[in-house]
C-alpha cells in the first residue's frame, strides 16, 4: 500500500469513524448527483460534455475530506465531484453550472466541471491538464509570504494522462523546490480517454516519480476507502506538518466512459472484471458496516436524503434563468478603460 521512505505501519493510522462516515457520505452524494447528471445528459437537458467520477469517489472524497475549507486550498479536476462535495462545495454549484443557470458560480460563462470558487480556496479548473498543479503551488507560496501558511495544505488531483504534461512536471518540481505543503493525488484509472497506461508512461508505477522530485511518494488501492483514508490522510498530515510535497498514486478504474458521450468500449473486459473494476462505493459500504461505523439502515437513509437533496438542486437550477446576452457584461477585464480605448 505504501512505497518509499516510510514503512506501512508508521503510515497507516486507522482512520476514525467520523471521518469515514463523512467521507462516505460525500462519495454517496457525488454518486447520486452524477447518476442524475447522466440522466439529464441522456435526456438532452445538458449542453456540452458530462464528465463523471464514478469509481473514483473513494480517492476523491478522501482528499477533499482531509482538507479544511477556509484554511487549505484544493484544485479539483475532472473526476472530483466527491472531493468537491467533501471539501464543501454545495451541490447546487454543480447543477447550476451543468444546467447553465446564471445564478451559478460561473454564471453560464463556463460549464460542467470547469467551475470553482477561488475565494473559498477552490479555484476553477481550466481544461488544460496539469495547469492546476503550479496554481496550487502559487496559492501556498502566497500563504507563506502572507505568513498564513502554518498548518495549511494545498491539494490537487490529476489523472494518469495528466502526468505526461509539462505543466505537471514543472509545477511539481517547483513545489518541491519551494518545499510547499502540497499533496498531489494521481488517480491512475488506467486510461486517459481511450489511451492505456502503456502509451502514457513506461515506469511500473507512477509513484516512482516521487523520488525524482525529492518528495514523499505513496501508492494506494483507490477502490478501498479505508486504504485511501489511511494513506491520503497520512500524506496530508505529513504535508501539513512541514514534510513538503507528497504524491499519492491511487490505482483504480474509471467506471464508465471518458464522458457520458463515450461508452468506454475500449476498456477490456478483463480490466472491468479485475480487482480495480470493483465499485469503491460498494467496498466502502461494506467497510463501514463491517467496521461498525454505520448501519445499513443509516446508509439507506443517507441515500434517500441525498436523492432528495439532488432532486432539489436540479429543480432549483432548472427553474433559474439562463444568462441573458443582452444583460451580459461582455468584459474580460475588471478595469474599465475609456470606451474608445480597446
Amino acid at each position, binding site marked *: 500500500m505504501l512505497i518509499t521512505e516510510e514503512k506501512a505501519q508508521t503510515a497507516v493510522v486507522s482512520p476514525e469513524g467520523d471521518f469515514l462516515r463523512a467521507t462516505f457520505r460525500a462519495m454517496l452524494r457525488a454518486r447520486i448527483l452524477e447518476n442524475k447528471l447522466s440522466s439529464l445528459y441522456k435526456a438532452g437537458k445538458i449542453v456540452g460534455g458530462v464528465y463523471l467520477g464514478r469509481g473514483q469517489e473513494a480517492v476523491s472524497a478522501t482528499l477533499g475530506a482531509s482538507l479544511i475549507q477556509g484554511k487549505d486550498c484544493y484544485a479539483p479536476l475532472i473526476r472530483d465531484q466527491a472531493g468537491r462535495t467533501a471539501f464543501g462545495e454545495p451541490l447546487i454549484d454543480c447543477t447550476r453550472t451543468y444546467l447553465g443557470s446564471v445564478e451559478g458560480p460561473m454564471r453560464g460563462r463556463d460549464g460542467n466541471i470547469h467551475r470553482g470558487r477561488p475565494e473559498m480556496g477552490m479555484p476553477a479548473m481550466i481544461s488544460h491538464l496539469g495547469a492546476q498543479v503550479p496554481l496550487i503551488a502559487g496559492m501556498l507560496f502566497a500563504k507563506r509570504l502572507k505568513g498564513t501558511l502554518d498548518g495549511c495544505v494545498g491539494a490537487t488531483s490529476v489523472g494518469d494522462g495528466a502526468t505526461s504534461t509539462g505543466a505537471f512536471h514543472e509545477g511539481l518540481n517547483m513545489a518541491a523546490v519551494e518545499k510547499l505543503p502540497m499533496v498531489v493525488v494521481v488517480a491512475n484509472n488506467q486510461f486517459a480517454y481511450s489511451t492505456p497506461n502503456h*502509451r502514457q508512461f513506461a515506469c511500473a508505477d507512477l509513484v516512482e516519480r516521487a523520488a525524482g522530485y525529492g518528495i514523499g511518494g505513496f501508492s494506494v488501492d483507490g477502490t478501498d476507502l479505508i486504504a485511501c483514508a489511511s494513506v491520503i490522510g497520512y500524506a496530508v498530515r505529513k504535508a501539513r506538518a512541514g514534510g513538503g510535497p507528497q504524491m499519492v498514486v491511487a490505482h483504480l478504474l474509471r467506471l464508465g466512459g471518458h464522458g457520458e458521450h463515450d461508452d468506454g468500449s475500449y476498456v477490456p473486459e478483463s480490466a472491468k472484471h479485475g480487482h480495480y473494476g470493483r465499485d469503491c462505493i460498494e467496498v466502502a459500504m461494506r467497510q463501514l458496516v463491517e467496521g461498525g461505523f454505520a448501519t445499513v439502515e443509516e446508509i439507506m437513509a443517507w441515500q434517500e436524503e441525498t436523492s432528495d437533496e439532488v432532486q432539489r438542486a436540479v429543480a432549483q437550477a432548472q427553474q433559474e434563468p439562463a444568462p441573458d446576452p443582452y444583460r451580459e457584461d461582455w468584459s474580460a477585464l475588471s478595469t474599465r478603460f475609456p470606451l474608445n480605448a480597446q
Partner: protein
Amino acid sequence: MSGVTYIDAIREAQETLLREDPRVFLYGQDISNFGGAFKATKGLAEAFPNRVFDSPISEDAMIGLAVGAAIEGMRPIIEMQFADFSSIAFNQIVNQAATHFYRTGMPIPITVRLPSGGTPGSGPFHSQSMEGIYAQYPGLVVVTPATVSDAYHMLVDSVKLDDPVIYCEHKFLYRWLKAKSINGDGLPIGQARIARPGKHATVVTYSAMVHEAVRAADRLQADGWEIEVVDLRSVKPLDLDTVLASVARTGRLLALGEAFPWGGVTAEIVAKVTEEGFHLLDAPPQRLNARDTPVPYHPKLWAAHRPTPESICDALRKLLSF
C-alpha cells in the same frame, strides 16, 4: 452513400495520404484504435498498422517529435485534440517548426490539425480559433477550409507542401456540413474563392463563417442587395488579388471572422485592402468578429459572442447605407 461530411473528408484525406505516401504518419491523442475524439482517424489504425499512433498527453513533445521526424524525411500529421491545447505546443510550433527553414535551409513538412472554433456548450477551452495567432509567425502556412471538398484537398495539399502547415478545421462543420461528393480537384493553397457572387458589398471570410455570411447574403437578397462572399481558404498566404478584385466590383468590404476581435485575420484583411486598394473603397471597411471575452459556455451567450446571420446582416446594412 448519403454523401460526405466535412469530417469524412478529413478522414479520407488522411487515408489517401497514408495510402499514397509512405512518409506520412499520424500522431495524436486517442487517434489510433479509438479513431480520435471526433473520429477523424476512424479505422485508419487498422488499415495502416504502425502508421497511426496514440500520443501521451504531451502537446509540446508531439510537435517536437513531428519536427524531428520531418528532419528525417517523414511527413507527420499531428492531431491536436482541440485547437486550444496547441497553446501547450506553442513553442515547438512557432520557434522550432516555423524557424527551421529560414535558419537551416531545410523545410519542415509537418501538418498540425487544429479542431477549431466554437460549438454550443464547448466553453472557453474547447472553442478557440487560433489561425490569427499562428499566422503572425513567419514560416507557417495557415489554412482554414470552409467546404467539404476543401477539407479534403487542402489537407492533402498541406501534407504535400514542404513547409509546416497549421490546418484549422472547424468543429461546427464536422457533421453539419455535407456534400454529395468530394470535387475532383481543388484550388491551390493561397488562392481564395468566390463563395457567392454579388455586386453591392464584399464579405471576406473563411471557415465556418463562410456559411453564416452566405446565409446573411441570402437574407439581404430579399431587400435587393447582392452580397459577394469571398472564402479566403488560407489566411496565410492571403490571396489579396481575389479580395481586391471583389472589392473593386463592390466598393464595400466587411471582414468577418469568428476569432477574438483584436488583430488577427480581419485586421490583416482590412489593413491590406486599405493599403493597396484604398481607391476602390466607397465606404469605410468594417470588421465583425467575436466579442472580446473568452468564448462562453452557455449556448445563449455563445450565440451572442460570435457573429451570426443577424449580426452579419446588421453589419452589412450599416456598410451598405454608408
